């Protein structure tokens, strides 16, 4: 069953200046994401993968095509699609707990219920003891953990992540990948994860979608069949290496195309 249907969705940004041609960020693409799928979208920078995510989130309107969530067309942003951004978007004037409760408060949930839910997600992302800290007092990795908890607390139908670990150092990034994968294995969520990191794309995905250089289109879709729960040791297996070698070739060709 398809949870999210992307049908011939294209995006052209007007240049805003006379005489300058508009930018085609995304050639019409189609993609079906099933219930509980973990899709990673892999592509060189500037290929329109973030644009695709923003279209699904409803933060941009497509120039052509339709996006359906559970059969209903998307007309704008909403709480049914949780987003974790690359930039740190915690509200600086709210504590960790208040940030996680932000969407729950908007739903007019009772304080007791808010507390119960936030308690659960604080524990899940390993931030016990930091409930009353402000974002400024947290490291980048911790901030993104709160951002994930904040998005999940709203119980969205699909979780959208736009290179959420892009600004983190390598060690932290690997730990975050394991954390997110662990949450997904437990909770079963539909996830669309944008990245340019091949290891990251393979490690977490049930399917990797490779995008071409601008204007973006879908170049290949590869299923990733490693069993769950996955441990980081899978990254050194020959199957993983083979998949990585293949994706490296795909991305390399696109990166070179983008450069010329």
């Amino acid at each position, binding site marked *: 069953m398809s949870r999210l249907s992307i049908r011939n969705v294209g995006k052209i940004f007007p240049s805003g200046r006379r005489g300058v041609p508009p930018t085609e960020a995304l050639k019409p693409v189609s993609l079906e994401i099933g219930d509980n799928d973990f899709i990673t979208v892999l592509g060189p920078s500037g290929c329109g993968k973030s644009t695709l995510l923003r279209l699904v989130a409803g933060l941009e309107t497509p120039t052509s095509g339709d996006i359906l969530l559970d059969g209903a067309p998307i007309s704008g942003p*909403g709480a049914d699609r949780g987003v974790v951004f690359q930039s740190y978007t915690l509200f600086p004037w709210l504590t960790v707990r208040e940030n996680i409760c932000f969407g729950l408060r*908007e739903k007019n949930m009772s304080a007791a219920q808010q507390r119960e839910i936030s308690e659960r997600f604080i524990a899940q992302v390993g931030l016990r003891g930091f409930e009353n800290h402000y974002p400024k007092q947290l490291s980048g990795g911790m901030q993104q953990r709160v951002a994930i908890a904040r998005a999940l607390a709203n119980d969205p139908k699909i979780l959208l992540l736009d290179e959420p670990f892009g600004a983190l150092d390598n060690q932290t990034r690997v730990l975050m990948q394991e954390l997110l994968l662990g949450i997904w294995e437990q909770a079963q969520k539909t996830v669309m994860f944008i990245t340019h990191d091949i290891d990251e794309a393979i490690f977490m995905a049930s399917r990797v979608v490779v995008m071409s250089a601008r204007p973006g289109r879908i170049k290949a879709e590869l299923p990733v069949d490693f069993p769950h729960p996955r441990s980081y040791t899978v990254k050194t297996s020959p199957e993983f290496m083979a998949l990585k070698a293949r994706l490296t070739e795909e991305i390399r060709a696109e990166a070179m195309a983008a450069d010329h």
Partner: protein
Amino acid sequence: MREDRLMKLLVPVSREKRTLLGVAFFVVFVALWGLITWSGAVPKHFLASPWQTVQSAWDLFATQGFTHDVGMTIWRVVGGFLLAAVIAVPLGIAMGTYKPIEAFFEPFVSFARYLPASAFIPLLILWVGIGEAQKLTVIFIGCFFQLTLMITMIVSATRRDLIEAAYTLGCQDTAAIRRVVLPGAAPEIAEALRQVLGLGWTYIIVAELIGASSGIGHMITDSQALMATDNIIAGIVIIGLVGLISDLAFKKVNQRLFAWSLQR
């Protein structure tokens, strides 16, 4: 050796040194002032000595009902400032959030900002007389346009990604304004209010120089006629002190209210 130098580029000084240096300036200033007057280099009726100024300040409060003047001045500044704030804050927020509203008002407000409030005094005397309304209006004009533009700028600088995050967490426009734009801009709006209140203090004396029967400015004009430089200087110093106190109080309140926005 190098580490012990007092002057180093952009290196902060300790709290004690800071206080010491700050106080040192006033000591040097008063000492020079005293030297000039006591040595007789400048005639007494041109420039009163520090001690004489303190004595007249005491006399002003004790025997000449100066407390009433100070009170009147404070009330005019605060009144005009509050009037300006009550309109400028919502208008600035609307202009910062909704660009068509900004496009409509911004050119006029930018123009009006450069009109010196004191230049309106003759006109205001014709329109509203020499009563309290005239004083309040001068402060209002002096504060309002400046404040509106500052708040527009602050609100315009709201991070778009935070607004987008709020949308994806279920906020509509009004909720995004209430829960993201306002709390995010609040510390800087409070800071802008503090600065503009300071501006109000610079206008009030001009407003009181003409057609006032009370206030610090009125006392200063009267003293000029009597060549009582001691009273004039006392008046100026008291304006400075009241301004400084209100500024510090404002700062303290802001720090308490917006602890999250301070440096770690």
